[in-house]
């Protein structure tokens, strides 16, 4: 029997655990929350979740991101909906209609008219070209993935304890920057610097309930360490060219 997990966070972390992504669970969690917060519009209840864009923050591959979102849609209720997007049958290069996964019936005429030609087509997942789309309920996701102080220190501590992981994330980020090969090592150094300061920041968070002087000391340290980050900024904005 299929079990519907009520909690999105629970489902997300379970997926990561079952798919050898446990170390990336916090990144996936923050990336999804960040995506929803940044790409949602005011007064719009549901927002599009693009696997392509979301993957650029996570780096697990577009297919795996689709698999993750499908899993979340299937195993939770009210957060993420999976849908199939098909092209028009008369104008095959143009978008036609979107059908929610739960409403889709193989080879049955669509209930909604085609956005291109107003006709009612029928589709098969085995034959027709399909694009997997996802809608996210903005409020529900933000509420469920909200990070408490305790969560932040607990989740982000993974970055503090795993040097290899920092290197892995730096490689993923560099590959996404589309820089010339000669500039990639320098960019990676900058990113590692950034991630280390992020690690320091998480230790500030870990101290959040502790001594105020320790927090101040750590923040000052981050400030000094972060001075090297302008190199990365220059590299990405092309200032080194001038």
């Amino acid at each position, binding site marked *: 029997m299929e079990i519907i997990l009520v909690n999105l966070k629970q489902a997300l972390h379970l997926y990561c655990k079952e798919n050898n992504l446990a170390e990336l669970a916090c990144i996936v969690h923050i990336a999804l929350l960040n995506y929803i917060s940044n790409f949602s*519009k005011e*007064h719009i209840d*549901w927002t599009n979740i693009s696997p392509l864009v979301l993957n650029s923050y996570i780096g697990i591959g577009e297919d795996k991101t689709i698999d993750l979102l499908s899993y979340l849609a299937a195993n939770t209720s009210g957060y993420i909906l999976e849908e199939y997007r098909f092209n028009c049958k008369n104008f095959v290069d143009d*978008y036609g209609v*979107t059908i929610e996964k739960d409403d889709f019936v193989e080879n049955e005429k669509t*209930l909604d008219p085609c956005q291109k030609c107003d006709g009612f087509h029928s589709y098969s997942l085995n034959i027709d070209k399909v694009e997997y*789309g996802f*809608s996210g309920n903005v409020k529900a996701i933000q509420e469920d993935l909200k990070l408490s102080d305790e969560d932040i220190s607990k989740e982000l501590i993974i970055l503090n304890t795993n040097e290899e992981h920092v290197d892995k994330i730096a490689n993923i980020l560099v590959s996404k920057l589309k820089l010339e090969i000669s500039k990639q090592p320098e960019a990676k150094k900058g990113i590692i610097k950034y991630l280390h300061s992020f690690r320091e920041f998480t230790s500030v968070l870990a101290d959040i309930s502790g001594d105020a002087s320790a927090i101040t000391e750590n923040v000052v340290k981050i400030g000094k360490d972060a001075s090297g980050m302008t190199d990365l900024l220059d590299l990405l904005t092309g200032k080194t060219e001038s």
Partner: protein
Amino acid sequence: MNTYKLELERRLNKPDYTKLPQALGLGQTYSDITSDNDFKKMLHIADRYGQKYIMFFKLKEDVNINTILSNLINKSYSPNIPMGNMNLKVAYVKKTGNNFEIIANSYSEVMKWKDITDTRREKVSVITRRVAYIEYNHSTKILTFAQDPIGEGAGITQDMSIYLNEIFSEYNLFFDDLFETIELLKPVCTLIDDGVLSSSKLQGTDEATGRQHETVGKNKRDNLKDDNIFKALKDESYSLNRIRLGHKNFKGTFEVFSGNILRIWFNINGDNTSELKTSITSIL
């Protein structure tokens, strides 16, 4: 097969018409009903639903409702079944206080694709009954006119006006003197802003530049109300071509067509017909 039954099953979806015996207290399940009269009773309800085009009108300020009510004559439900001729005929009139409802029907010939074999389709001519349903509520002074498909494309605007005038002229009333058409763009935009309706396709023309703009949301749950085209349609800097819409309480697509016609794209039933009309009339 019983002609009323045939028409009933053509008009409504199975889940809808099979509910009717219980709703009407006929004491039998749908599959057990054989009486002509019972099918006629069910069709009387079904004729109020299933139309694909709806227009909204307001009683003109200087018109006394009694002028209309005194001319209208109650008529018991007498649908043009089996078909006598194809002309438009009033099938039902009922006055209740200052409110009234009218059902009219006609027949038209349409060409439809028919599967001859698994691999061969042919266009065949089909004569189909077309129903118009008029409902006037004096508390809002709004008349809704729902019409089955008649004619093609933009011609529907003209055809609906002809049908309305023809129905009222039977009672020596000139419809255009009594009611004014309500434009739907503004009320629909208000309902989109309020979250009752959402839009998945917006098409408008910038009259100054002659450019046509269109935005289509691929995401099923998206609402294009944050898009610049929506703002331009709302402030009338673009003229409206189309707004394709959905309702928060039921699935199915409809759209504003020609500025004042609501075009229904799905098999509408009693519940969502009422919900749709009520949502719109509530803010007119």
